[in-house]
């Protein structure tokens, strides 16, 4: 495909809908929306051949703000919806997006199994370490000593998940981290993620100005990983474990067998009916 010509004909705004987001001013999710539309425009995918599947939460509202096919489902099940869609319609480009609570708490089982299943889709977790839509509760990525939630006034006392590490051990074949303060960098990661054959996991650090205003300082801490992308899971694990979670880039990429059922031809009902005859 000649991307240079397509870039001229399709613009990021062509992938946006006319609906105004519910997000707060300064929310990182605006940048994720921009990064997705930029990536789609760069690759030049026809809108009707893309589906964006989301769960429930602030970030999951993103489906309605794009002009591709979308499905805003129930809380935590976006990956399952997307897996069914991809199984039935292999030719579609399937994107999945949601928050840290949606993907790692209520949807945690689908997350690990989707990594393992390695269907060809891209999953973006917009991580702000908080449940925003329900007005500020701790999520699985929240630090144990965060005491600003009325639900856990002494903090959760529970160590947070490391999403990239979780994805690695669960078998994801593409693992990256981006930052909404660098939407172009995030868009580039998304282009690689979409083009990767298999399950691509992208953690997008996306500050919540309302319930986690201190995250507005992330821009001073975030930097690119020094090392190049590795295909070695042991190196990737080391890199993830020795990092403070603020380094960005494509951490790990490998070619694992892609799960894609339903690619056979229809041989007809005849022999099935005859099985019933004695």
């Amino acid at each position, binding site marked *: 495909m000649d991307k240079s010509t397509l870039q001229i004909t399709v613009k990021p705004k062509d992938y946006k809908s006319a609906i105004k987001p519910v997000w707060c001013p300064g929310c990182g999710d605006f940048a994720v929306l921009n990064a997705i539309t930029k990536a789609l425009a760069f690759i030049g995918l026809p809108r009707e051949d893309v589906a964006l599947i989301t769960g429930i939460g602030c970030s999951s509202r993103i489906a309605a703000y794009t002009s591709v096919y979308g499905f*805003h*489902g129930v809380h935590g099940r976006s990956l399952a919806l997307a*897996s069914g869609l991809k199984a*039935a319609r292999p030719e*579609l480009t399937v994107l999945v997006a949601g928050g840290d609570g949606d993907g790692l708490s209520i949807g945690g089982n689908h997350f690990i199994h989707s990594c393992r299943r390695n269907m060809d889709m891209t999953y973006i977790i917009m991580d702000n370490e908080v449940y925003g839509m329900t007005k500020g509760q701790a999520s699985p990525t929240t630090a144990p000593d965060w005491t600003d939630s009325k639900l856990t006034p002494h903090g959760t006392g529970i160590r947070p998940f490391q999403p990239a590490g979780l994805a690695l051990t669960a078998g994801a074949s593409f693992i990256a981290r981006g930052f909404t303060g660098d939407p172009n960098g995030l868009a580039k990661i998304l282009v690689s993620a979409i083009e990767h054959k298999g399950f691509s996991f992208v953690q997008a650090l996306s500050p919540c100005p309302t319930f986690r205003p201190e995250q507005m300082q992330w821009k001073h801490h975030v930097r690119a990983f020094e090392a190049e992308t590795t295909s070695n899971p042991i190196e990737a694990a080391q890199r993830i474990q020795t990092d403070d979670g603020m380094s960005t880039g494509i951490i790990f990429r490998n070619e694992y067998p892609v799960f894609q059922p339903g690619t056979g031809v229809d041989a007809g009902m005849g022999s099935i009916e005859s099985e019933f005859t004695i």
Partner: protein
Amino acid sequence: MAAFFDFDHESLSAMNSVQTCDISLAVTGSGGAGAITAGELLLSLAGKNNCFGMMRRSFGPQIRGGEAAALIRISHIPVECMNDSFDLLLALDWRNADRFAEEIALRSDSVIIADPAAGEIPVAIRELDVEIIEVPMKALAKEIPAGRPNMVALGLLSHWLGFCGDEAGKLIGQVFASKGEEIIDGSRAAFTAGFTEPLIIEAREAKPRSECGEPVFAGSRWHFNGNQGCGLGAIRGGIRFAAAYPITPASDLLEWLSPRLEQLGGSLVQAEDELASINMVIGASFGGVPSMTATSGPGLSLMTEAMGLAVAAEIPAVVVNVMRGGPSTGIPTKSEQVDLNMALYGLHGDAPHLVLGALDHADCILTTEWSVRLAEALQTVAIVLTDQILAQSTVLIEKPEYQLPEISERAVAEPDEAYQRYEITDSGVSKMAIPGTASSTYVADGLEHTESGKPSTAAADHLAQLEKRSRKIHSFDYGEHWADVRGEGKTALLTWGSTTAAVREAGSRLRAAGHEVKVIALRLLLPASPDKLARELEGVERVLVVEQSHSRQFHLYLRAYYDIQAKTHTLARPGPLPITPAEIVEQIESWS
């Protein structure tokens, strides 16, 4: 040729006057003894001998190695349920035989075939004082290389039933084809040893003979269980994607579908849990492919949230729920009609959807196909209810033929810049754009929405969409398949699901005894058809509601949706033992 059921039917006929040449027999044995294999072969042989029949398997709780019983009924006329009691029990051994005592009701004129080497006959059996024919099955098998006692037993029973022995040889060859020549030869020789054993011939000759009439239908038989019936109905209806999470007693339906969907160019995906399987179904259906899953009570509980999504987002989805004893893990290997409440009322919000119940094995095919077509046409969720007894018992019947009303396929949108996914229409059905269709992109949403699909909390939008979703379900013409009605009379037996078979047989017995009885079995449960039932109940003075539920779920459903004027009694009892025709007859005869 016709089978000769030269068993003494006098006592049976007195009790059960419409059934002649109708034998119920049980084969029991410890794990690995081959009781089930012998039973399956006997049923197949019955088919080759132009009989009809049914077989239920009963197992102990062990995963492997527990005792097993094949409960078989063979008749020259079609049968859909087990009879009240057993004419013959063949025990390969007596290990844990007491476990089946409740299930295998014997009478004083029943016959037992047992191996004297199997040890002492349990007290409970000896106390029945029935005739016991002792045949050394184990010893006979031992003389034959690769001979097994269960094949000797098959020979004994085939002789007892007057079956053609040649067919057995062929059948053994087919069934054991993968096991090699030695096993096939040994099995055939063991069968012949049983078939020609002087002890059985002598015992048989001592029994009065009453020859059967010609079978009512001499063509080839269909041999299948309810899970397979649902599977066939599903693919006939157009299902090409399924997502699965294993659960007893629905797993074998999913296992049946897996290779067959592949053969049809579709697929089945094993999900990580039921939450995933129902969401995968919805995702695939959103992609334009008719999709289903199958589960049982606990799995249906997990699926209800997503079924609400499918209702709100108007995505066709079919869930076959094979009911088992509940609540919780309950009695997972036995039958009960106890997920009706959940299927009817389990969805959150005002969520109009379809609930259908299959009435018998043949009806598993019809009801599932109809459910798929309705779900597709009405863009909603259809829950199909069957239960363990339908799902896992095998029947031998005439090939089922049925005619479903013409139902339009899923309404699909063409490319359209002004496309509105949830457009308000007279029928309530709006066109669905399938991903890949240019210009008609939209977002399917569980949030309440406007006609275009934009999220909305406006009262007017909520009302308009609620009415749209309700209208498409309630204004649709479901035709005559809402129920299966047989006979006329001032007494009506009203039921649903698998108890229908026992109710129909009770109806036949009551008619033969001079009662005028109408049998009504509801197939379409939601939406309810109060006007149609009212018409069927015109002139009916008393109604007996029959169901297998301790809390009378079906009766309470009738009270909620229908206005039944006639005097009503209920026969509602829990599982795990199936409701018998005799229980139903007794309720009517004692109703004064």
